[in-house]
């Protein structure tokens, strides 16, 4: 009888601890729900998002990626929504609104669907798709830009904007966060995948369709 009492007590304690832990996780993962209703957070493939937690960055270091986290992963964490637009590589002296240093073509910004946003994040996070081993001299050509709105650190209402530009002249991916350039790399190994992606999301863009 005594043994059963002790076992019951221990079991109850274990259940209580599990409930407390589950409650804490529920509080920390609740979304601000920028778009309302069911959370529209997109962090890559649903199954992968479950396996690979988004890096949690303390607010004071939000402006720069921690050294152990690839900027491509850090800058695409906790994406809530995205837009796509055509941009151009121009001289620094050329006036006009910029996205990651590229000039935005007026009237071209449009929303990106959650499915395409997920696909974009997956492509950007595909580590084998990038070449960080060189720095090139090349002339920019057809370029596509993306503006990603990311939710702020848990418990805050702030948000972060990541700007991505794919330049198909140099196969260069440029990344800026809140207007500050943080990283550039080359997507030569995944050029075809990115080209297929942008021609699907901008099917009426003749310039992109002519690219091989």
């Amino acid at each position, binding site marked *: 009888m005594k043994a059963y009492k002790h076992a019951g007590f221990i079991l109850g304690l274990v259940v209580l601890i599990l409930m407390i832990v589950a409650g804490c996780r529920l509080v920390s993962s609740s979304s601000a729900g920028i778009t309302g209703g069911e959370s529209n957070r997109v962090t890559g493939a649903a199954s992968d998002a479950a396996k690979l937690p988004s890096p949690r960055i303390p607010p004071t270091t939000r402006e720069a990626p921690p050294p152990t986290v690839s900027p491509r992963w850090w800058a695409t964490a906790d994406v809530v929504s995205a837009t796509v637009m055509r941009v151009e590589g121009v*001289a620094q002296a050329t006036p006009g609104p910029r996205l990651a240093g590229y000039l935005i073509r007026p009237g071209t910004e449009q929303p990106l669907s959650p499915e395409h946003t997920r696909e974009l994040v997956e492509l950007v996070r595909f580590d084998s798709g990038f070449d960080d081993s*060189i*720095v090139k*001299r*090349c002339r*920019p050509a057809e370029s596509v830009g993306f503006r990603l709105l990311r939710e702020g650190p848990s418990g805050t209402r702030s948000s972060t904007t990541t700007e991505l530009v794919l330049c198909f002249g140099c196969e260069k991916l440029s990344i800026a966060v809140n207007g500050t350039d943080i990283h*550039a790399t080359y997507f030569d190994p995944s050029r075809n995948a990115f080209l297929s992606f942008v021609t699907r999301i901008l099917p009426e863009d003749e310039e992109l369709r002519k690219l091989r």
Partner: protein
Amino acid sequence: MPIQMNAGDHISPHPGWVAVPSARRPMVNWARKKARAIATGMASADQYFKTLPGGRTLRNLLNDSTIWINYAPAMASFGAQSVAHPNEIAIGPSAFRIGRWTVLATLIHELAHVNGAPGGNDRRAEEALVNCGLGRQIEKTSGVDDPRTPYDPTIAG
């Protein structure tokens, strides 16, 4: 001993970078000679290179025999510098197709990277050309490229 051209006497540690084909070597030799003439005759060249993070002059870089000029047959861009092996630079077929002034411009641009000029969207490597007489200041300040000069103000990185 001066900056070296890979004429088959060097195995670049950067994958895919090989000896400059014999048909292309005269252009590289001309570019090296012209670069030395610029370093000697144009004070602004050394002055500019000293402002780059590496702090070396163009003359010093051109006299560095540990720097190798390779050929990158599969590269679509004009040229590149190896990040892992910073003294390895390469010139691609497109630069040779355009001509010796583009080969020279690419050499100067890549030497700016060897001297610490950042990549990404930074403009300092390409602006070395203006200070070496290979571009006009008005191109930089107006943002309008003059096709008669090798400098291109739209090139970043």
